[in-house]
């Protein structure tokens, strides 16, 4: 009796027997031999389900039908009857584990891209194949990747669309789905991996996972890179593209550490809030991507080897020798040096929409009546408006000393005209100390342009001091 039970359990865990293989029409055969299973990273062997069981749906949006999708399939006649045009670029967007293809974020992303580019935008829905055991879903993507590759081959043969003009955007497991499609399609234009899934892929051979060889250009956003055990980080920390972006260090995103009620009762509704409660960091990757479509300048990545160096300011600003690409939709405007891959870029984002931020280095020299504890803040004013006040330093303020900090401001103010300085006591001080800034230098990250401002006089706490330009 016990033996039988253990045998059953073992069978359940190991799945099908090693060395098995399934073959599907037009897609080829799928085996579960190494490296697909039987390795430390992928202990449980599973064969992918049949295309019928996975039931992939291709939902096509174009500028002719922005609100209602047309369902197409891997059949040239069906495609010919739709609004698809081979002369336009094509983008696939695909979801990951548990998710579905008619989820708002995919449809919204299509609409956003269509508002800036005239393309065929296809949301790939495979919810029947994603709502199962993780190990099964991680193998189902092989069939889906083959289906996407097959569809791209139809685009090429029947509609003269070169694979170079095809872009696949995949979130989580979807990134590896895109990788499989790219492996089967020589010369695929671009793959964007939005926080590629870690379990069953990190540390695996390139055949199994996303890597730079899968497309001419592979860009990746890492937003949940902590290890799966014990932190439940769903995304890869490993660099797997030509460009790898680590917003906010790539591990924990701002705005994701809210208390449970605040997280679930979200501005975008209970459903969106619940999704964020389960996987806030992981889902941030597609939110950044969506925001970047209309606002590339707000997602400038700084070339850096690790987060500590980025935070300490060693990777600031952008220079001609280390240019900054845009994270997200406009990453392909970056010229990747020949043969270069796994280039790492760091940046900071906001904690809620809009996520775009602009990095500056602020150097402040202060003067005052005496040494005192407190903090001071600086706001930037430009031809395009002004920013909030950003705290530059908190602690002992000593007259004559210079303080420096990198800030990520929420607004692109453009050419700076003046800055404002304000300081405050932490405690009540009856001696009524006064402080002021004698000089503030602001260096803009995107082009190293520096703005110099001079001030005279000292002010009481909580009084704004305006510093004007003194080039």
């Amino acid at each position, binding site marked *: 009796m016990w033996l039988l039970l253990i045998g059953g359990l073992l069978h359940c865990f190991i799945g099908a027997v090693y060395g098995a293989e399934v073959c599907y029409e037009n897609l080829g055969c799928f085996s579960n031999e190494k490296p697909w299973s039987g390795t430390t990273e992928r202990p449980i062997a599973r064969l992918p389900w049949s295309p019928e069981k996975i039931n992939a749906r291709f939902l096509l949006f174009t500028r002719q039908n922005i609100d209602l999708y047309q369902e197409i399939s891997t059949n040239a006649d069906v495609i010919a009857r739709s609004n698809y045009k081979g002369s336009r670029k094509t983008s696939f967007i695909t979801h990951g584990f548990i998710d579905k293809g008619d989820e708002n974020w995919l449809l919204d992303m299509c609409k956003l891209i269509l508002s800036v580019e005239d393309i065929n935008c296809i949301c790939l829905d495979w919810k029947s194949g994603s709502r199962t055991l993780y190990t099964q879903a991680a193998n189902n993507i092989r069939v889906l990747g083959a289906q996407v590759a097959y569809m791209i081959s139809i685009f090429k043969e029947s509609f003269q669309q070169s694979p170079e003009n095809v872009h696949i955007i995949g979130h989580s497991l979807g990134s590896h789905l895109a990788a499989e499609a790219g492996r089967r399609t020589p010369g695929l234009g671009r793959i964007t991996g939005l926080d590629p899934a870690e379990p069953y892929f990190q540390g695996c051979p390139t055949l199994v996972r996303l890597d730079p060889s899968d497309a001419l250009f592979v860009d990746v956003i890492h937003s949940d890179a902590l290890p799966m055990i014990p932190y439940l980080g769903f995304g890869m920390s490993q660099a797997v593209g030509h460009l790898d972006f680590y917003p906010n260090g790539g591990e924990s995103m701002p705005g994701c550490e809210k208390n449970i009620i605040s997280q679930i*009762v979200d501005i975008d509704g209970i459903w969106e809030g619940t999704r964020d409660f389960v996987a806030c960091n992981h889902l941030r990757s597609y939110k950044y991507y969506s925001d970047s479509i209309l606002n590339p300048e707000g997602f400038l990545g700084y070339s850096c080897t690790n987060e500590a160096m980025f935070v300490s300011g060693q990777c600031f600003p952008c220079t001609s020798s280390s240019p900054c690409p845009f994270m997200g939709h406009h990453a392909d405007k970056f010229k990747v040096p020949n043969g270069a891959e796994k280039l790492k870029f760091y940046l900071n984002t906001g904690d809620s929409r809009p996520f775009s931020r602009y990095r500056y280095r602020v150097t402040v020299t202060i003067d005052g009546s005496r040494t005192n504890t407190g903090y001071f803040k600086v706001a930037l004013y430009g031809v395009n408006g002004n920013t909030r006040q950003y705290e530059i330093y908190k602690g002992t303020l000593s007259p004559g000393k210079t303080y420096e900090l990198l800030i990520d401001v929420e607004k692109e103010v453009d050419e700076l005209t003046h800055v404002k300085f304000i300081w405050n006591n932490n405690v009540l001080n009856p001696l009524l100390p006064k402080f002021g800034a004698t000089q503030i230098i602001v260096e803009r990250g995107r082009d190293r342009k520096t703005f110099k401002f001079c001030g005279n006089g000292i002010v009481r706490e909580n009084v704004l001091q305006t510093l004007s330009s003194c080039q």
Partner: protein
Amino acid sequence: MMRTVLVIAMCLVALALATTPETSEEKGLFFNLNNGELCVNSVQCKSSCCHHSDDYLPRCAPRAADNEICSKKSLYGTYYYCICEDGLKCEGDWSIGGSIVNTNFGICTDPHHA
């Protein structure tokens, strides 16, 4: 059998709790709330602004910057537009009616800058 499972489960929970990454900034449940967290009064927020737009629940939000729309300080505890940042004055008309329905709005301006 049951007890072993329970012990293992408790060990796992203890492990998970012990290995949760420490947040550098102190995080509050009722006070000291971050932007985006639900609130009923501005004193709960780090930013001192519990902001609610017409149809949503109030949440902590950053204070209004220079030249942005603001509310004058009121006893309500929540605001339709946030109060101004340090050193700024919410310049606008004040009325008794407005103070009753919490709609004394204005624009943040710097009283010391022409």
